[in-house]
């Protein structure tokens, strides 16, 4: 008498995912083990000959598993993942009768018994034999399908978390650029001997800058006045480093001080203006940061009198080892797109009279940050 057996996808708790052929053999062995257990159960309950029950149970179980395995490979291009959505249960529903027919036929051939001829005389026997197959198939394969779904979801969540971590790391790395950090420390070391009070002041700015950089990846917004204060820390460091070569002006109208902005949004623009505009230029230069309201739009501008976009691009082509501004700017665009969609705009253009002008336009949220 043919009996039901059930395909068994690999259990991730039992085996860390073996790959390829080993993976397949491992799953096959698991299926055969389950088939054996079911055969034992049925043989005890029905009183049929154990060897006979085992043969049919193994043939049907392996056939159903084979069909499902084949289906998964076709759907996922050899990855043997469960197909998405309704296709998973549908695959089980197809595999169950198909595997039953194949399994019974093979078992008949092996044992010399003719199940199909028997069914012609006693059609009710077919329902009695196929019934348990459907039940076991639904319970076990369905269970494993559900577990596969949960696993896929967990993997998706983990991948998203991984992505977010990488993005935060990239942002941190771009803000704590080692070249900037070591040059600042070298200046600090020089100041400690030459001018201790100024060294202390510089160290305070460095501490505030580092604290803000590390906090920015966790905060979602802060008042514009905080943004300007953090810029001031950074600019104070750069003024010590560049001496007379850097003049900075920051203008924040008091009525805009409390407006909420994403933390360190302006930072990459100011860094960019210095690193690619003013620092590589011979002689002194100026940096101007200001905020203004244009209707319901907050306009933030960073202007420099540096060497300009074209010269920076040429220098980059000449010295490919030098850092590029691409990453910082892409990050600004990406953040604006994520937070405001098409309501925010970022432009980088040549400044009238030389240098570069970066401009961010944001919708005003209307509610000040306390």
């Amino acid at each position, binding site marked *: 008498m043919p009996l039901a057996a059930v395909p068994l996808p690999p259990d991730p708790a039992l085996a860390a995912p073996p790959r390829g052929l080993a993976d397949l053999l491992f799953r096959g062995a698991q299926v055969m083990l389950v088939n054996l257990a079911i055969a034992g159960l049925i043989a005890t309950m029905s009183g049929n000959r154990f060897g006979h029950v085992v043969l049919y149970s193994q043939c049907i179980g392996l056939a159903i598993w084979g069909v499902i395995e084949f289906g998964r490979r076709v759907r996922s291009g050899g990855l043997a993942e469960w197909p998405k959505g309704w296709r998973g249960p549908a695959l089980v529903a197809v595999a169950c009768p198909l595997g039953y027919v194949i399994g019974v036929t093979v078992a008949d051939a092996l044992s010399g018994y003719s199940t199909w001829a028997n069914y012609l005389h006693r059609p009710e026997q077919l329902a009695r034999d196929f019934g348990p197959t459907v039940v076991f198939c639904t319970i076990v394969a369905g269970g494993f399908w559900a577990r596969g779904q949960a696993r896929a979801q967990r993997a998706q969540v983990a991948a998203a978390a991984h992505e977010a971590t990488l993005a935060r790391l990239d942002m941190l790395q771009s803000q704590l650029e*080692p*070249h900037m950090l070591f*040059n600042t420390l070298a200046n600090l070391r020089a100041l400690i001997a030459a001018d201790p009070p100024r060294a202390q002041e510089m160290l305070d700015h460095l501490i505030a800058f580092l604290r803000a950089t590390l906090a920015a990846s966790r905060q979602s917004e802060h008042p514009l006045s905080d943004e300007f204060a953090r810029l001031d820390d950074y600019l104070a460091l750069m003024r010590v480093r560049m001496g007379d070569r850097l003049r900075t002006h920051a203008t924040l109208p008091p009525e805009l001080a409390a407006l909420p902005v994403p933390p360190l949004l302006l930072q990459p623009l100011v860094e960019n203006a210095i690193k690619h505009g003013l620092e590589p230029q011979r002689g002194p230069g100026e940096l101007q940061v200001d905020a203004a309201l244009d209707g319901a739009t907050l306009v933030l501008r960073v202007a420099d009198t540096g060497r300009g976009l074209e010269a920076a691009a040429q220098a980059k082509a000449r010295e490919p080892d030098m850092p590029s501004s691409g990453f910082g700017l892409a990050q600004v665009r990406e953040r604006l797109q994520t937070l405001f969609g098409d309501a925010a705009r970022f432009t980088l253009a040549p400044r009238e009279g030389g240098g570069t002008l970066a401009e961010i336009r944001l919708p005003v949220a209307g509610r000040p940050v306390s």
Partner: protein
Amino acid sequence: MTTALIAEDEPLLAQALRAELARAWPALQLLEPAVDGDAAVERALSGRPDVVFLDIRMPGRTGLEAAEAIVEEWPADAGALPLIVFVTAYDQYALQAFERAAVDYLQKPVQPARLAACCARLRDTLALRAAARDASDVAAAPDDAALLGRLRTLLGAPAAEAATAPLAILQASIGSTLHMIPVDEVVYFEAADKYVRVVTAEREALIRMSLRELLPRLDADRFWQIHRGTVVRADAIATATRDDSGKVFLTLRRRPERLVASRLYAHLFRGM
């Protein structure tokens, strides 16, 4: 008297290096420091120091470009080339290149022990040089060749970016017409400000690309760099004549002009 030049754009760091050098090497005479790469070249060529400390990232020319220009333009009657020490805060690629080329370098903040060791090495090299000069009347010191070799290794170090496919055809505009020039027909390339001048037997044209960008895209066996601003097709060279200063003058097969190979690349023409 031993003299040195510091090229550093950050004033406090220039001051600090000055102070540290005064401690590590009291006898060292320091020239007025240079605040950018171009000033470094001018100061070095006019002041002719024995040692040059070059920051890598400077306004104008970078430290590497400044070193190249100093070595190429160093007057023949000025004696041995200056010893060059590169200074950098953090440049991963540069550090690897320094190691490979075995050039002297310091990392910022400069550690006194590291600086002392560097100064000791420089003093040894200068002492050897002085001994060699006393022993013979040869103008060029024996370590110049080694220094040139190290600098060549450094300048030839592959850029961080992967090289793209070699160029076969150059697209150059002459007036409003685009000319397609097979690379095989080019006699030489010459850097011209932001462009490269492409010279063939019949004509010349400009391409909007720097020589530095172009070089990795040329077959190095067929196109030789002979000067920081010149790359010539090897089989277009007719003769090479060396003058007293170590410069090599080249005549070409299908062009009337003469090209100069700087002493950095003069080793290419040694006879068989």
